[in-house]
């Protein structure tokens, strides 16, 4: 809660800055071509070291093997350390991993970090005492995992990452969230959707948590796709903290500064739904297009009713990792990184029977 408050202060400050720069932009007319090129270069630079963008680029490459293979007839014991269980996505992650483990004949022990880095580390340490065959992790954040992962290496226990991971690590396999790909897929869809527009389309971005790698990947990839097509003008970008309420507040101020905005991007569906609430509250329902990412169940009715244009399904990757662990423990090589982009969902896709991701 406190973090939220602190973020809000940051957001307010950013908002003030954004207003100032936006006003300046308005008076100077639309952005010049050089500005656009500079912005693209900036985005490229920010995505250069982005784990998810890089992982996507290297997806399927490289081959790692496990230090030990599982003796014939023994059940594999996998420890799954997850950052917390306080979100349906995370619960889905565990359920799917369990189902996959059962199918593959492995036991899966789930240890929740209860949304705290320190507690998650405690759990991973405790689990080392029971000497499992493999560790699968979805870390709250990846800083500070070095020493404990080293202990697992020393004990010859292979470790794997699901969803979130580490660029520089000796993880056997990481199946990461396709954040960059999702932004790109959505960007391509939007570019095609507005292909007939004569004037540049005015776009507002509601990003996720400021500085968060996933948010940078999604928002940056989406923005780059739009800018490269030359048919769009980004009029505002505000952080929405991946939360509905904060995103609604962000959209309120965007609408105040740029009443002529035509399309809003939410870095997740919560952000998109928050923006939609603001739009409806401003009496502009139906005038402004909204897109989001995640494919959560709430957004499906909004897509069907035409309030939201499209989303991209964000899928749990734990089952893939369980599969890889079993492969690896039986002696097969597995790729270092894997990224599986989700499907784009629009009204047509729902008619054809698309299901929410979580």
């Amino acid at each position, binding site marked *: 809660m406190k*973090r939220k408050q*602190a973020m809000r202060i940051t957001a307010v400050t950013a908002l003030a800055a954004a207003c100032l720069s936006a006003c300046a932009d308005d008076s100077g007319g639309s952005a010049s071509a050089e500005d656009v090129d500079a912005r693209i270069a900036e985005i490229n630079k920010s995505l250069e070291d982005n784990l998810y963008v890089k992982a996507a680029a290297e997806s399927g490459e490289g081959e790692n093997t496990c230090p030990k293979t599982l003796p014939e007839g023994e059940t594999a014991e996998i420890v799954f350390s997850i950052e917390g*269980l306080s979100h349906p996505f995370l619960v889905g992650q565990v359920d799917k991993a369990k189902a996959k483990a059962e199918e593959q004949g492995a036991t899966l022990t*789930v*240890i929740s970090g209860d949304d705290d880095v320190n507690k998650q580390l405690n759990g991973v340490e405790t689990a080392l*005492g*029971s000497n499992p065959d493999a560790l699968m992790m979805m870390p709250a954040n990846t800083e500070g995992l070095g020493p404990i992962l080293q202990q697992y290496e020393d004990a010859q226990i292979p470790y794997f990452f699901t969803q979130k991971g580490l660029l520089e690590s000796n993880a056997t396999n990481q199946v990461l969230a396709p954040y960059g790909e999702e932004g790109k897929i959505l960007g391509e869809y939007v570019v095609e959707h507005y292909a007939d527009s004569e004037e540049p389309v005015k776009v507002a971005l509601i990003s996720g948590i400021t500085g968060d790698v996933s948010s940078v990947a999604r928002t940056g990839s989406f923005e780059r796709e739009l800018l490269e097509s030359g048919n769009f003008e980004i009029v505002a970008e505000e952080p929405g903290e991946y939360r509905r309420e904060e995103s609604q507040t962000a959209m309120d101020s965007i609408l105040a500064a740029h009443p002529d905005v035509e399309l809003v991007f939410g870095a997740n569906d919560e952000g998109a739904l928050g923006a939609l609430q603001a739009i409806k509250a401003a009496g502009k329902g139906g005038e402004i297009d909204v897109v989001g990412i995640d494919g959560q169940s709430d957004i499906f009715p909004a897509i069907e009713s035409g309030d939201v244009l499209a989303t991209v399904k964000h899928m749990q990757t734990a089952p893939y990792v369980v599969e890889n662990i079993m492969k690896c423990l039986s002696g097969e090589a597995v790729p270092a990184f894997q990224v599986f982009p989700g499907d784009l969902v629009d009204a047509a896709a729902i008619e054809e029977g698309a299901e929410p991701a979580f």
Partner: protein
Amino acid sequence: MTMTEKSELSPASSTRRTRGAARLSSMNLHDFGLLGALLLLVCVYAIIAPNFLTEFNLLNVLRQVSIVAIAAVGMTTVILIAGIDLSVGSTVAFSGTLAALFLTERTEIGVIAVLIAVTIAVLAGAGVGLLNGLIIGLLGVPAFIATLATLTGVRGFALLLTEAKPVSVPVGDYSWLGTGHIGPLPVPVLIMALVFFIGYVLLSRMKIGRRIYAVGGNESAARLSGVRVTRLILFVYIFAGACTGLAGCLASARLSSGQPAGFIGFELDVIAAVVVGGTSLMGGRGRLSGTFFGALLIGVLGNGLTLMDVQTYWKQILTGIVIVVAIVVDGIIRRRGSQAS
């Protein structure tokens, strides 16, 4: 009649007996209860929790408990003066982050740099403590509100310094503080022992310790008895802040990084340890040994449940139940002990 007078005036023999009894009844009973609960828990886990009773796991529990326990030493002094410190989680994040910021750009981290980093963290914690103390002692704001404010403010400051990103520290001597061993014992455990020793000397062997209990027991009586209450409040919050700063330092060493957004709600773990340890939230009553056992009890409880693959939701529920049971049992013991009036 004469008999009565005699027993009043020369109570030497009976004094010794009843003194022992009084001590047992009012002071140690809680510790015995806690220790009993702890032993019971250990026995049960030894039987049903796989890999519980191994050296590796037991040292692990001690190490994991040590960060909470170190902050709990400071919290015990605060609660003894009938205060509360809600800013602990933010201060742990803030002090650890500052230490990490000092170390992050270095390619080589030697002993001197580590010592400086520790000092920075402890001073940062003490600084937050000073701020708490000033708001409470000088401005007269209730501790709950004052530390609620610093909880928010300090967190914001930590996030501002780092733009909410974790600050990583190159693995080296610094992380030894959090993950290393001296002999068989983990370093944080040794540091925890040192902090408890300091706390013990402070509370039981120094005059200020007596005054801490007095202020918590009855502030105006203590003031009229010559205790400089404002100074004492300042001292206690600074001491508690320093403990918290040290805890933050160890936490960042363990994680090899400063986590400006981490440790949210950590203060509640610390308060729980102190309260389960038998220190009264009304002030004036409690002991450090209780705090240690309280922290250990909560830590062991969670550890065993993790080993038994109990769902995290149940862990949280059980921890809640343990806190309530501890308080209720303590109340019963206390009423038995001094059924006066």
